C-alpha cells in the first residue's frame, strides 16, 4: 500500500529500538518515521552508540543520511553535525564509526535498511552520483525558487536534486515571525522533519523539534506560521509546485481535478497532447529513452 499519510508525528517521546536487521551489528538504534509496507523503504531516526563501528560496505537501496547531532567517521573523513550524504545503491563506503556517538536521519528509498560488507562497489553502482556535503557550513540559504512562491522568510538549501524528476532533498527554515496565509497542496509527495524549532499549520497544529510528516500528493496544508523560527529537512519525489488556495475543506480528489485544470490553462498544448483521445500517449524522451525504468516514485510504484 505504499506509505500512509503520517502527519503530524512527533518522535521525541517514543523510545529507540535496537536495530536487528542483518549486517548492522550492535549499537545502532532506530525509530521508524514512516515506511512503505510493501518494500520496506523507510525514513528513520537513528542513534549510534559511542564506539559503534561497521566494516566497509554498501546498501542495496540508495540511502540518504543527515547527521543531526554528533559526528561519524568514514575512513579518514569526518561527517560533522549537518553533514548530508546521498549514497547511490551499491556504492561501497569505507569503514564507519561513531567514536562519540551520533544521532542521524536515514532514508532508505527503495527497500528496507540493508548493509552488505564489501570494500568494492557493486557492478551496477553509480559512484559518480554520490553527494557528500556539510549542509550547515558549505551551502548558503537561498529563497525557495518556485512560482508561485512561499512567503518571504522561508529559505532553502538544496542538498540533492534529481534532474529527471526534479525531486529534491533540502533544508528549509522559517525565520521568526513567519506567516503564510494560504493553503497549499502539491502533485508530489512531501516529507519533512523538524531538526529544531516549531512551526504551525492550520490542519495539524504545532510541529515541534522532532516533528515529522510524510504527506502523499494533493493533501491540504497551511496556513503556516512560526513564532521563533525552525529548521527542517525536506524531500519530494518530483517537482514541487505550490497549488495555493483558501478553501480548507477541499478533498484530495477535488485538489487533483483543480491541478489538472491549472495544467490545461497553463500548459495547454502539452495537456491536449497528453490527453490523447485514442489511448494513452507514451512520450519518448530523446535524452532519457529508458526513463520509465529509471524513475521510481516511492508513492506510485
Amino acid at each position: 500500500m505504499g506509505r500512509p499519510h503520517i502527519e503530524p508525528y512527533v518522535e521525541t517521546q517514543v523510545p529507540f529500538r535496537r536495530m536487528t536487521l542483518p549486517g548492522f551489528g550492535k549499537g545502532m538504534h532506530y525509530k521508524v518515521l514512516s515506511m512503505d509496507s510493501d518494500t520496506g523503504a523507510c525514513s528513520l531516526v537513528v542513534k549510534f552508540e559511542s564506539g559503534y563501528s561497521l566494516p566497509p560496505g554498501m546498501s542495496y537501496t540508495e540511502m540518504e543520511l543527515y547527521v543531526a547531532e554528533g559526528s561519524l567517521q568514514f575512513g579518514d573523513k569526518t561527517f560533522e553535525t549537518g553533514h548530508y550524504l546521498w549514497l547511490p545503491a551499491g556504492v561501497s563506503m569505507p569503514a564507519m564509526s561513531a567514536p562519540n556517538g551520533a544521532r542521524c536521519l536515514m532514508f532508505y528509498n527503495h527497500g528496507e535498511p540493508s548493509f552488505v560488507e564489501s570494500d568494492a562497489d557493486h557492478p551496477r553502482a553509480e559512484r559518480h552520483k554520490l553527494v557528500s556535503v556539510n549542509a550547515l557550513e558549505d551551502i548558503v540559504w537561498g529563497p525557495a525558487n518556485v512560482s508561485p512562491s512561499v512567503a518571504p522568510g522561508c529559505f532553502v538549501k538544496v542538498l540533492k536534486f534529481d534532474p529527471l524528476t526534479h525531486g529534491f532533498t533540502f533544508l528549509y527554515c522559517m525565520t521568526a515571525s513567519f506567516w503564510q496565509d494560504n493553503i497549499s497542496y502539491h502533485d508530489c509527495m512531501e516529507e519533512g522533519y523538524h531538526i529544531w524549532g516549531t512551526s504551525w499549520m492550520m490542519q495539524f497544529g504545532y510541529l515541534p523539534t522532532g516533528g515529522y510528516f510524510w504527506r502523499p500528493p494533493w493533501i491540504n496544508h497551511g496556513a503556516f506560521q512560526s513564532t521563533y523560527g525552525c529548521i527542517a529537512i525536506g524531500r519530494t519525489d518530483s517537482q514541487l509546485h505550490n497549488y495555493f488556495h483558501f478553501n480548507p475543506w477541499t478533498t484530495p480528489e477535488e485538489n487533483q481535478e483543480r491541478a489538472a485544470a491549472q495544467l490545461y490553462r497553463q500548459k495547454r498544448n502539452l495537456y491536449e497532447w497528453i490527453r490523447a483521445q485514442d489511448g494513452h500517449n507514451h512520450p519518448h524522451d530523446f535524452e532519457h529513452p529508458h526513463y520509465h525504468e529509471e524513475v521510481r516514485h516511492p508513492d506510485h510504484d
Partner: protein
Amino acid sequence: MAKLIEYEKSAEAEKWISDEGAEQEERYNKIVKEMDDLSEERDVWVEKFFGRIQTRGFNVHYDNRRQIPDEELPKRPDRPFKVVF
C-alpha cells in the same frame, strides 16, 4: 540508474517489515484520532484565517497578497472535515 540493486529479502527483513508495518498502522490510527480531537480548535483557526485573508490578504505569490471579498469565501460542505487521508 540503479536506485535499487535486486536482491532476495531475508526472512528477518520480511518479519521486520511486517512488524514495523503493524506498528505504523497503529501510529496512523492514533494520528487520525488526535487530528479528530483537534477539530474544534481547528474550526477557530479557520475562522481566524478567513479574517486574515480578508484584511491582511491571501498570499498569492511571495509577498503578493490579495484581500478576499466576502462573496469569495468558501461555504463549509456538509461532510466531515478530514485532514488526514
